[in-house]
């Protein structure tokens, strides 16, 4: 049962983003929250409710179940900024240039040690011609259109000894040099 909401389109949906909305959903549920985004594929709404103790409750209402969406109020600048940072990794770069250079060198050495071709291009590292690592050279700073290489390089970076990043989720271990990159 799809009401008009699903058919509005991105240019209409974006008007509801960063506003506090009231959503009437299929089973008589009424949800409220600050709208973070609307998925253009399923018209699903992502609502965030800020709690007293600092945490947040996130509710995703599936597009097919939406009956009515009403705007209650606009977000102030603080809430809008907070919404932005809630889901995305922080882009804060607290390292000074010297520290960044040291980090870049360290990552480059580690990749070379694992027989991965890497060249420095300015402040970025270019891996095998298909993956780029930007400052501050954490696994999440890798960009590539090749899913497999991205995954392997990220795991490799996470497994670097004395690396201050989070532990890998699955079993660790050096990727054998001969299979480091799929050909």
């Amino acid at each position, binding site marked *: 049962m799809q009401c008009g909401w*699903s058919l509005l389109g991105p240019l209409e949906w974006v008007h509801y983003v960063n506003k506090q909305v009231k959503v009437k959903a299929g089973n008589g549920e009424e949800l409220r929250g600050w709208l973070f985004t*609307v998925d253009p594929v399923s018209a699903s709404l992502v609502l965030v409710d800020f709690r007293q103790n600092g945490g947040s409750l996130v509710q995703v209402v599936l597009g097919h179940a939406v009956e009515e969406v009403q705007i209650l109020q606009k977000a102030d600048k603080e809430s809008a900024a907070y919404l932005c940072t809630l889901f995305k990794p922080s882009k804060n770069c607290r390292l000074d240039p010297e520290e960044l250079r040291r980090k870049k060198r360290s990552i480059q050495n580690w990749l070379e040690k694992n027989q991965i071709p890497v060249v420095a291009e300015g402040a970025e590292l270019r891996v095998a011609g298909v993956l780029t690592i930007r400052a501050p050279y954490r696994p999440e700073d890798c960009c590539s259109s090749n899913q497999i290489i991205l995954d392997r390089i990220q795991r490799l970076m996470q497994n670097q000894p004395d690396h201050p990043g989070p532990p890998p989720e699955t079993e660790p271990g050096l990727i054998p040099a001969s299979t480091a990159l799929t050909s």
Partner: protein
Amino acid sequence: MAAPVPVLRLPKGPDPNSRGFDPSSPRFIALCRTSIPTSAAPEADAEELQREQQVRSELRENFLWCLHAMTNKKVQFHMHEKVKVEATFGASDIDVLNFQVSDLQTPIGVQKEALIRSQDVISLSFDM
């Protein structure tokens, strides 16, 4: 957390894909559109289309970040008939038609791995 117990599977229907996941089944086609079409009408000019595409990709990227934040978290699914179940979120497919979850707590036991159809879900919630 309760230990997983084996859950009796309901008997299969007449055809091998009777549970509604088969993309060519009439049920699937009737209920699950693969994606919402663009508003590309002949009268829409190129500039508006470009703007629409830009907004579309920003909205989608934010939604993907939300899905990413949900991974491995305990999520409550609010389904039809006021049914609420809890599970650990795994992943969604590209069209947000199915959700892969683990340790699905159901009234008849804990299902270690499960696929939930998005058409059966009204909303889902989790804490951040």
